[in-house]
């Protein structure tokens, strides 16, 4: 069992409320997933040529500003760093490949959780409420986000196995369920040159969908249409990119999901109880997504 949540704030003027709305959703779903948690949030795009890099040091608090100066000394690319405990968001013109090379050489214990002009990713093992406090989710601003609380069933409990999973840029996914053919998907994608970081089934789903996007799918919906044909098993998948939130459940609807829509927001959760606090929920259009129907909401 795991909990998934998603929120898309429709009114740009209300984007500063994203964090305060998401924290109770997140805390409630901790009952479905007490061992790890994570959140992927999409904020204002950085300027042309800059990327946000979500950096994370499991179990330690590195000297983040020193990392930024070292990066500049080694690569010539400066970076603005925003620190949140053992997490830092680096805004920099450095290329992903160059940053990976730098981290591999000089900071091998620092993990790169996400890349994009909008996306920032947080995740760790431990009590979801504590993780939400540590990274101050309550003050996050942005247009949309996806979150996950994990109860591991098929692979290890580690920060890398926590959700969201990311692939490419400005793309992340949370998953409740278990795939029965992740190794088949993985062998196919590895043959295409993709690199995997864990043995987790949700990472296979994430890389498969993002691969379809890069291979020419016009949007996440089209990528999911192709991926659903290949994925076997149980899933409620919530996928976010810079443009959309997209949701799909497997053909048997084995894992739950509830959607609440108002003029102000679209909120998605594994269970209604984590949406009950949202403003205007009594007037919301509340529905259970049908199996194998792909739902998407534009930012």
């Amino acid at each position, binding site marked *: 069992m795991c909990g998934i949540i998603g929120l898309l704030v429709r009114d740009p003027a209300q984007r500063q409320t994203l964090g305060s709305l998401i924290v109770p959703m997140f805390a409630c779903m901790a009952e479905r997933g007490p061992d790890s948690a994570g959140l992927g949030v999409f904020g204002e795009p950085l300027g042309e040529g800059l990327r946000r890099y979500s950096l994370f040091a499991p179990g330690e608090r590195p000297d983040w500003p020193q990392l930024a100066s070292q990066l500049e000394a080694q690569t010539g690319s400066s970076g603005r760093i925003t620190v949140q405990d053992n997490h830092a968001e680096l805004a920099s013109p450095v290329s992903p490949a160059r940053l990976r090379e730098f981290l591999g050489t000089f900071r091998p214990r620092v993990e790169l959780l996400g890349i994009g002009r909008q996306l920032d990713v947080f995740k760790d093992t431990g009590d979801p409420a504590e993780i939400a406090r540590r990274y101050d989710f309550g003050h996050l601003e942005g247009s949309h986000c996806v979150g996950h609380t994990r109860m591991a069933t098929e692979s290890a409990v580690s920060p890398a196995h926590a959700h969201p999973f990311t692939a490419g840029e400005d793309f992340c996914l949370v998953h409740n369920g278990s795939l029965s053919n992740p190794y088949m998907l993985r062998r196919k994608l590895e043959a295409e040159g993709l690199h995997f970081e864990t043995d987790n089934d949700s990472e296979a789903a994430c890389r498969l969908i993002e691969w379809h996007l890069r291979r020419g799918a016009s949007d996440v919906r089209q990528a999911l249409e192709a991926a659903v044909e290949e994925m076997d098993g149980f899933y409620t998948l919530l996928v976010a990119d810079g443009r959309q939130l997209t949701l799909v459940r497997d053909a*048997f*609807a084995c894992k*739950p999901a*509830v959607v609440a829509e108002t003029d102000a927001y679209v909120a998605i959760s594994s*269970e*209604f*109880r*984590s*949406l*009950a*606090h949202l403003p205007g929920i009594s007037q919301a259009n*509340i*529905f*259970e997504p*049908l*199996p194998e129907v792909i739902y998407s909401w534009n930012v």
Partner: protein
Amino acid sequence: MTAPRVLDLATLGVRELNQYLHHELPGSGIARVDILHPDGRHNIAVGLDADVDVDIRGHAGYFTAGMNKRARVTVHGNVGWSVAENIMSGRVHVRGNASECAGASGHGGLLVIDGDASSRCGISMKGCDIVVGGSVGHVSAFMAQAGRLVVCGDAAAGLGDSLYEAVIYVRGTLHGLGADARVEPMSERDLGDVGELLKQAGFDYRPQEFQRVASARSLYHWNSEVHQEY
């Protein structure tokens, strides 16, 4: 009529609520209980065994009114998975929609859902009656053994898969029957039964608009003449 006893889940835990309903309520002379702020919590009003009317004012979570005996429980909202699971008697009425496995393995009593019920509605029902005002999701009444499922809307694929002796009546479109389920003619008795159930549930449809789905009973016995190759 005396005023209902009001219990507010904004301040009271579900466990305390259920302990009250199990231990203090029976014999107290209280005929009505109002439950406020359910806010999707699970296990509200499970295991009741009392002649009482319970109103849940809002959306409720999983297993609402499970194992109900005698009580008449009304949910003024939607419910999550497995409402009235294993209902024994009495009546559970959902004014909104129900999620999966509504009325699962119910032995007796009546479950009414004004809106839609999603997949596996009436799975393994064992004698209860279920009336759904809207549509039901896939594989509803799977392996249902006894009782009646009345669907005023449509039924999604796999209806009545591996059905035993429960009978299903559907007014709308059948999007596909499960293994061993078949459409049969409506008898006078069927028309009478459906009319009675619709009346109890408060729906104003004509029994003649419904189709009967029941078991072809071909899965009941081992057929040794079939190739046993799998």
